[in-house]
Structures are given as C-alpha cells and as structure tokens.
C-alpha cells in the first residue's frame, strides 16, 4: 500500500497552483493519473520518485517512510526501489541493450536479464546500441530496464505518446502482460483515454493540483451494467444543442444527450447501448 499525503506549490503557466494530494494506492493495482497539461500529473510521479520534493507531508510505501517533512526524512531516488519509464526513453547510448539491463540489475542474478529479454522479445536486439533502434524498440528496452530490478513501484510518464498507433497498442499489451506477470504496483500518467481504459484498474482525475474524481475504471466511466451490448469510452470534444460530439479512439461520434447542463467539453464519458449492432462490412 502506498500512502500519498503531500502539498507542493507549483509555478504554472497560468499562475501558481497548489498540488494537494491525500490518497492511497493499493498494492499491485494499476493506477492511471489523468488530467490537462500543467495540472501536476508528472510532478506527482517525480515526488514519488524522489526527484522533486514536496513542501510538506509524507509518502509511505509498505510501511517504509520515503518522505516525511515532520520526521525530516527524504530518501534519495537511489533508495526508493522504483522503475521509471520516461517519454524520451532515457536509455544509455554508450551501452548495448543488454548492457543497459545489466547496469540496471547491478549485483542481482544475471539470469534475470535473460528472462526479461525473452519476455520483452528483445533477444535479437541484445547487442544493438540504442541509437540503432526504432522508437518502439527503445521504449521496450526502457521498460525491460525499469522492471529488471523488480521495483516496488513502476512509474510511467506518458510512455507511449511519442509512438505510432500500432506500436502503442503492441506496447500496451506488453504493459498488461508485465503487470499481470510481476504484479508491480504501477502508476501511469497519460492523457490518452483509450489507453487508460485498456490498462488501468483505477483512475485519478486531476485538475489544478487537486484530485477531482477517482474510482475503478468501470466506476469512473459511470457504467458497470453488464446488460449493455456495446460500450465506448470517449472524451467530449464539442457540445451542440441536444447532443455532443465524442472522440472515441480516432473517430467522432454524435451522441444525443438529455441533460446537456451536466456535461462539459473534456469530460470522460462512457457511452453504452442495449441495441444490437451488425457488422456490415470490413
């Protein structure tokens, strides 16, 4: 269990915001933090990683204090037992794929590198340098490197946003597989709703430094009724007179809405229907 309870003043483009978090994250869960840019999402990851320091509060992971302003404790990133996946991969260009993993592993069991290379399908690329890899391959190496030490928490900062759709889907499947296999508590920062829906078990929605909505994925999207035939998750992109336009994946759906006052642009919604559909062509 991870207890997050901290405050930090952030300088934003539209003035200062107060990042104010008081939440717990269950062990082995896959939490997604969602929100507009500049809302403090990435700062939360940095604070957990020990790269950024809260003004006050505490962070407790499995009864171990990582940060406490009261007790004057602030473990450096080296002692926090985390894996961090950056958007720009942050691989070490001077080392080959397997050397990146060996460096991360340190004194651990060398067979672990072999194991992770197999799971992430990197055996054939093991002697290549990062500069000779594609974006998707680089992020797979970064993922392998982040999990080779079996960290307590895996932090993912928009890890797939620089990749094309096909590669993104492939890596999403890999993240699911790894989460199931190793059960590492994972925290993902993302603004891609379909990605969150696919990967996460729990969601925090954050706005201007505060968590405004949270829940399990099905709770969050407002639907847990299994009678529904079809479900789509999407984001409201425009509100019309008695309907709204919803972005679902890469398509726009027009949905009629009874009470237009309850929704606003940017809301995440779940659309469901009880009617059956037929596929009329490919």
């Amino acid at each position, binding site marked *: 269990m991870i207890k997050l309870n901290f405050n930090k003043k952030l300088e934003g483009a539209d003035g200062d915001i107060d990042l104010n978090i008081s939440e717990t994250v269950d062990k082995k869960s896959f939490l997604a933090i969602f929100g507009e840019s500049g809302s403090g999402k990435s700062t939360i990851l940095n604070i957990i*990683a020990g*790269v950024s320091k809260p003004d006050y509060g505490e962070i407790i992971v499995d009864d171990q204090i990582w940060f406490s302003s009261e007790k004057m404790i602030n473990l*450096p*990133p*080296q*002692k*926090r*037992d*985390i*894996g*961090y996946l*950056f958007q*720009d991969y*942050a*691989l*070490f*260009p*001077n080392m080959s794929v397997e050397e990146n993993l060996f*460096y*991360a592993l*340190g004194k651990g069991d060398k067979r672990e590198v072999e194991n992770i290379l197999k799971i992430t399908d990197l055996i054939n690329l093991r002697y290549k*340098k990062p*500069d*000779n890899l594609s974006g998707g391959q680089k992020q797979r190496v*970064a993922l392998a*490197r982040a999990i080779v*030490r079996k960290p307590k928490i895996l932090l993912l900062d928009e890890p797939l946003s620089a990749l094309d759709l096909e590669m993104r889907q492939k890596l999403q499947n890999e993240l699911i597989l790894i989460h199931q296999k190793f059960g590492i508590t994972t925290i993902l920062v993302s603004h891609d709703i379909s990605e969150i829906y696919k990967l996460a078990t729990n969601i925090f929605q954050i706005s201007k430094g505060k968590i405004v909505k949270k829940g399990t994925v099905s709770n969050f999207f407002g639907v847990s009724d299994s009678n529904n035939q079809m479900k789509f998750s999407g984001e409201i992109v425009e509100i019309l007179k008695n309907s709204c336009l919803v972005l679902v994946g890469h398509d726009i759906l027009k949905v009629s809405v009874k009470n237009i006052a309850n929704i606003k642009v940017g809301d995440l919604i779940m659309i469901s229907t009880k009617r059956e559909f037929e596929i009329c062509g490919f």
Partner: protein
Amino acid sequence: MLENQFLETMIVTFKLAGVTTFILLFIGVSLGYYLAFTENRIKPFFEAIISMPLVLPPSVLGFYLLMVFTPNSWFGNLLKESFDTQLVFSFEGLVVASIIFSLPFMVQPIQNGFSSLPKNMILASYTLGKGKLETLFKVMIPNIKASILTATVITFAHTIGEFGVVLMIGGNIEGETRVASIAIYDEVESLNYDLANQYALTLFIISFIILLTVYILNRRFLKGQF
C-alpha cells in the same frame, strides 16, 4: 649543437603541454561537472573568472602571476621558505601559469558536454539505484567522450601555442623554460631565420595534424562508431 638545442626546446614545449593538459583534465571534469549542475547563485562569477584568459591579453595575466610568484611576495616567499621552490623562471611555474591560462579551453567544452546530456538519462540512472559517482563514470563521462577529447586536444594545442604568459613567467632559459614559440621570437631577433623557420614549420605541422585528428575522431563519435 644546434640540433640538440632544437630538440631540447621541443621536448620542453611538449612536456609543458602534456603535463598541463594531464592536470587540467582532472580539474576540467570536476569544474565542468560542478558548473553544469550547480544552482548556486555565484555560478556566473566562477564562469567569468574561468573565462578571463580568453579575453585578457596574456601579458596582463603574466604580469599578475609574476607579482604573485616572485619571492618578494607573500606567496612566493611562503613557497621559498616552506618548499624551497620558486615559480618564477622555472618549469613548475610555467605549468601553474599554463593551467590557469588554458583553464577555459578545458572547462568550457566539458561543461557544455555535461549540460547537453538529457536530464532524464541521469535521472534514469539514479532511479535504478546508482549513486552520483557511478553515474558520472559509467553513464555521463562515456557519453561526453567527444567533448572531453575536444577539450583535451584544444588545451594541448593551445598550450603549445602560448607565448605571452610563458615569456613573462618563464623567461627564456634553455632546457628549462624555453619553449618553441619563444625560440622563434628569439631566433628572429638574432636574424637566425633558418632555425626560426624550423621551429615555426614544426609547430605548424604538428598543430595541423592534432586538429585534423580531432575533427576526424569527432565525426566518428557523432556517427556512434565508438
């Protein structure tokens, strides 16, 4: 006799450049690292001091170093009394003066190299449990090899080409402080054009070869062939 004198002067020249560069390499990596990552407010002050030799006439620096090193000064006296050395008109003095004079040529490329490293690369190493020293030697330095090579070679070449400071501090003592750049001046003064040309041509060719090597190696570094 003339041949011996030429060789001796060239040896002093390269010994001075070699010793200066070797010592500066350690100073350059430490100072470059500090300046690239410090958030201390007096950083611009340090940077300005280190860059002074780039803009000052060498004679200004030479003059002040002479004032400090002379046995009549407090510092010079201390050295003489405690260690029985003197830095004026000695090889050791030339090394100290060259280190100060060539400092920006070593520090600046290394500092730029450290600054250009992606921040997340360093953070990634820290989050993998690696300390600052291990990160420095296994991640940061290997990835700024090109900057370190450039800094080393430019410093070496620049020290060979020094004139003003060397003349003020070292004088022109054969086999001790007489370096090639001074020898050229000296031989021209004595209308010894052939010998002056021998020195000049040697410096010209060596400097060219050194710089050519740097640019060829740098191209390979950028292509990732190392």
